[in-house]
């Protein structure tokens, strides 16, 4: 029986398969964190994740929820600062960068700033963050997108991060960005796409399981290059899904396919009649599935003993 998986899980798995061992990758918040964690566990154990606020070489024992948190430099080789990291990328030492966006155009230009006009936006998005630096300075950027007509557009409403600019060599000759750098792959819930060597227009490379060329075309708001030979991406394996669900995001920060281990902090009246503050994990149904720590005892078992009816 084929394993079932969500569109998010498919994106993560496809992205994880793109890393190369013994290279560096700039990891932004969200799906790239899961992809890098999965890649390190299954395919590229020596992948060096780089986080913009300073973490280099985290062992990624726990999935980061924020690009500056301690999990991004957990057992790392370097806890630096943002200038150190951006300058390392500017010198050409960071190979891969992973980005998401609200809109993408045929040349891989990205918008993460506003939908509508800048002065009167319909939707104010978070802004560049480190995205522009990653897209400008890394050698190869991988863009993770939901594949929809409103996101794959002829012209982005706001050009936050330059891809191949107006096509051809214009990323270098007109925008002035580093020669030889630029978008490498676009990974979506429907397909993996690349860019034509000459024109730098987006082209279809491989379809996701069960997806047709027609479906990709229908969900793309501009003319897509379709080569004669289109590949097919193997679906997520049972092993990939198991590692993802059980080892990488058991807490369910990003995945909704697991039971979830959601942190809660509760108080109870302990056996000594004094209040006890306890950290617990709940599943999605709200049931307590584990006691983690409390304020007046050193081990989870001792906490549990103080409040046996938790």
């Amino acid at each position, binding site marked *: 029986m084929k394993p079932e998986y969500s569109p998010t899980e498919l994106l993560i798995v496809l992205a994880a398969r793109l890393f190369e061992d013994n290279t560096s990758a700039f990891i932004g918040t969200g799906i790239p964190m899961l992809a890098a964690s999965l890649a390190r566990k299954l395919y590229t154990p020596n992948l060096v994740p780089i986080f913009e606020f300073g973490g280099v070489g985290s062992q990624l024992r726990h999935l980061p929820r924020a690009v500056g*948190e301690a999990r991004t430099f957990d057992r790392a080789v370097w806890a630096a600062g943002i200038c150190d990291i951006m300058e390392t990328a500017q010198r050409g030492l960071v190979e891969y960068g992973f980005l998401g966006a609200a809109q993408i155009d045929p040349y891989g230009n990205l918008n993460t700033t506003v939908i509508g006009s800048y002065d009167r936006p319909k939707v104010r998005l*978070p802004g560049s963050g480190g995205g522009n630096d990653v897209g400008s300075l890394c050698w190869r950027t991988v863009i993770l997108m939901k594949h929809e007509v409103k996101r794959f557009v002829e012209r982005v409403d706001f050009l936050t991060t330059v891809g191949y600019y107006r096509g051809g060599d214009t990323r270098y000759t007109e925008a002035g960005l580093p020669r030889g750098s630029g978008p490498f792959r676009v990974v979506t819930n429907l397909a993996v796409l690349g860019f034509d060597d000459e024109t730098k227009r987006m082209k279809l490379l491989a379809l996701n399981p069960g997806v047709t060329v027609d479906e990709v075309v229908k969900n793309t708001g501009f003319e897509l290059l379709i080569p004669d030979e289109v590949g097919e991406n193997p679906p997520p394996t049972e092993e990939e899904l198991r590692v993802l669900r059980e080892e990488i995001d058991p807490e369910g920060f990003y995945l909704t396919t697991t039971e979830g281990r959601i*942190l809660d902090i509760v108080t109870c009246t302990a056996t000594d009649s004094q209040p006890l503050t306890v950290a617990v994990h709940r599943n999605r149904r709200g049931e307590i599935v584990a006691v983690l*720590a409390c304020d007046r005892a050193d081990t989870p078992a001792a906490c549990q003993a103080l409040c046996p009816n938790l």
Partner: protein
Amino acid sequence: MQHELFGSPDVEAFRQWLRENKSFELKEKLMSEQEAISRFVHDGDYIGFELYATVRCPMSLVRELVRQGKRNLGVLGQGLQEVDFLLAAGLVNRMDLTYVGYEVYGLSPILRRVVEQGRVKTAEWSNGAIAWRLKAAAMGVPFIPVRSMLGSDMLKTNGAHVMKDPYTGTQVVLLPAIVLDVGFIHVHRADPYGNAQIDGISGFAVELARASKRLIISAEEIVDPEEIRRYPERTVIPYFLVDAVVHAPFGSHPGEMAYLYDRDEPHLRMYMEMIRTEEGTQQYLEEYVYGPKTHEEYIEKVGGWGRMKVLSKLGVKR
């Protein structure tokens, strides 16, 4: 779209100001949040925080700033709650913005409301650009050439110039230095003079400290100056940059502090739920920002020292 610079790149004036206002005298600068904010922050100031709200952020100072209602502030806006509290309280009129959002929890409804209703002027930058602008001021030069942001529409909003480098012909963005009227940084430990140490990543603390006319430090722990002198290589911010030192244990709550305590996930979930509406946002501010008059009262309000002790048992340890 606008082109004026919100913050000053005038390094000549900055030099003069530093000479007249900073002192190498070793004097104690310990004070409360209330005193630090009322003495060193003024209406109309251009301010910046480090790192950001779920990570090593001077949240007790942010809450006091909102309570004192300093108005017409300009903000170097990379952040989460620290920026959103000020926006929601209507204290900001201009903002150099790189990212305001909640990462795993998505877009900021507060930023959306404030910007979509045209209540604040904005200019766009990348994270690297913001840090490098502070670095230029830290270097004492009026601009710094970089290769981020080239070709992007952000340049139409922020007033930065692009030129060809006269040596190699490479295009560069000339990022204007930015001098902050007041900078706020939360650290692991500091002595009463302001010598400060940070564990883990340093974010942009070094640059922000050096780019600030006034600098307010909050610290998890106040240590003996002898501790600083024993490990001088650990000092990331030397005392002569610092104007105020505030003792704020769990000062980054609901964010984390590397190796000391994890972020308060249940509180963050509740916060995200409340800020979905304007009413909920104001209710959050009432309960958790305006309500508690001191950091201690805030800690009581969010669950007390017992909860802080539990948070200190969670998170990454060395």
